[in-house]
């Protein structure tokens, strides 16, 4: 039922039952709309509302699946479930030292599983997929970062496998870490 704003009540005018039903229906209509592409109220817990109600809520950085399902979280395969800004600090001879500048939603950690290959485990989804954009250098073009989904039956389980590449002579070597101060922006999508 579409939302129809009810007329305001007047002093001494009876609050008719239709008025009350209208208000009830309005709220239920809004609930239905919210639940279409946001986590609903039957399966999700309430929030620590006091922080939000203060009006200054702007974080924390890591919500999403680090909480139990929360009513109001976006719930659609069309909207990212997780995001990460990954810095890959390495030198020609030095060790790889990837770091997460930002982790949000289902992307909370990663493992280095091979040279230039990172695995981001994701739980709570039947399947996931992702997209990455390389960042960093002002002069050395990084090759596109490749994001492949990993499924429950694969060696590392459900998650994203991200392969980075670096320039070598005039070409690019596969599965090598990027040059110093390069990294990538990563978005993860999924179906529950």
């Amino acid at each position, binding site marked *: 039922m579409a939302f129809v704003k009810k007329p305001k009540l007047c002093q001494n005018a009876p609050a008719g039952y239709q008025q009350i039903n209208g208000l009830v229906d309005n709220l239920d209509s809004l609930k239905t709309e919210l639940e279409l592409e946001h986590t609903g109220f039957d399966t999700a817990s309430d929030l620590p509302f006091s922080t939000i109600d203060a009006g200054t809520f702007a974080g924390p950085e890591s919500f999403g699946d680090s909480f139990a399902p929360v009513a109001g979280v976006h719930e659609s395969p069309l909207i990212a479930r997780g995001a990460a800004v990954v810095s890959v600090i390495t030198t020609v001879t030095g060790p790889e030292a990837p770091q997460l500048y930002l982790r949000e939603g289902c992307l909370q950690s990663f493992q280095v599983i091979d040279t230039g290959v990172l695995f981001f485990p994701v739980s709570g989804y039947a399947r996931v997929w992702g997209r990455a954009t390389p960042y*960093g250098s002002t002069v050395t073009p990084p090759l596109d970062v490749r994001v492949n989904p990993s499924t429950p039956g694969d060696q590392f389980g459900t998650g994203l496998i991200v392969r980075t590449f670096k320039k070598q002579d005039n070409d690019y070597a596969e599965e090598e870490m990027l040059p110093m101060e390069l990294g990538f922006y990563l978005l993860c999508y999924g179906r529950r």
Partner: protein
Amino acid sequence: MYRKPPTFVRNDLLTAGTYNQMRENAAVLRNALRFEHVNSSGEHNTPLIARTLGTVLCAAGPTYSLQGFNADASLASGHNPSAGKLILTLAGSRGYEKDKGIIQVQNASNNGDVQPCLSWARWASDDKVEIYSNRWAGTLGSTVDGAWDSADNASFFVGVHGRRLPVGTPNDFGPPLQRGDGLRAGSGTTYANQLIQGCADLQVSMDVGHTAGAHDTREIAKYWAHVQWDGADFTVLDEEASPTFDAGGVTFSSPSAGICIGSFTTSLASNNYQVFIDVDYGRLSGSPDDYFIACVPEDEISSADFTVYLYKKFVSSGIEYYDRSNEVDFHVWVFDDH
């Protein structure tokens, strides 16, 4: 907790308990909305959703213009400081912070139909992002060594994500009724009017970026598909379309190797939409170790369809070169403004 009261009939008494349940229902909905939306404006408010998204159009010269972005993005002064480099300025106090937000870039160079093109991005400061483009200056299919060091003045599809903004003052639903309070006189009437107005304001917030609950803002994809090369043509393995996606759906076909055309079921109102590609790997025909680059030339974006060019890396006698090939899966996202 949200509990819908039973339907009232004539002469039913509205008790304080029932009234207060309606008030609590409103608060539950308000708090859910506030979790990933700005309360006062209804704007989406999570690092997982772009705060601004659109197309950077590059014409001869080069001259640049923006299409589809909201007021958060503008071309910086000296936005083209060197070949292949573009700078966007972002609005202040909108949650943008250097290295703390996602930048999505899809290369849309008009050279992408003949040569693989790369793009990448970085935060220069809290209010500036730099976007770069580069093309492979070799001949497709030729084993003569090509070079990647050709800065390319290009169009881009760009999305920039910010951090969460303060959510603003919560909607006021008035105080709860006490036992014996009525709605017919005095403070009871005022309270009830506050609840009615608060619910109306909440609906106004919900209507921003949503139509009947379905997202209808450019910053959220209207369509996604996992597209597979099955050896004969491209087929859809999985897909999702928003109820608000005017095109309805997309079909994919390949007129020749390395070219995939995405055709809308119903033409969109204009070519003001954005396409992002993530190359997966060859599940059927190709090898998981194959390396591909996808380009979506802006000048091949029309209201009826778009074209994706897929380039595969080959190695011959130590020389790397590229050629068009279909032997790969990819994910595609389409962003439109309604």
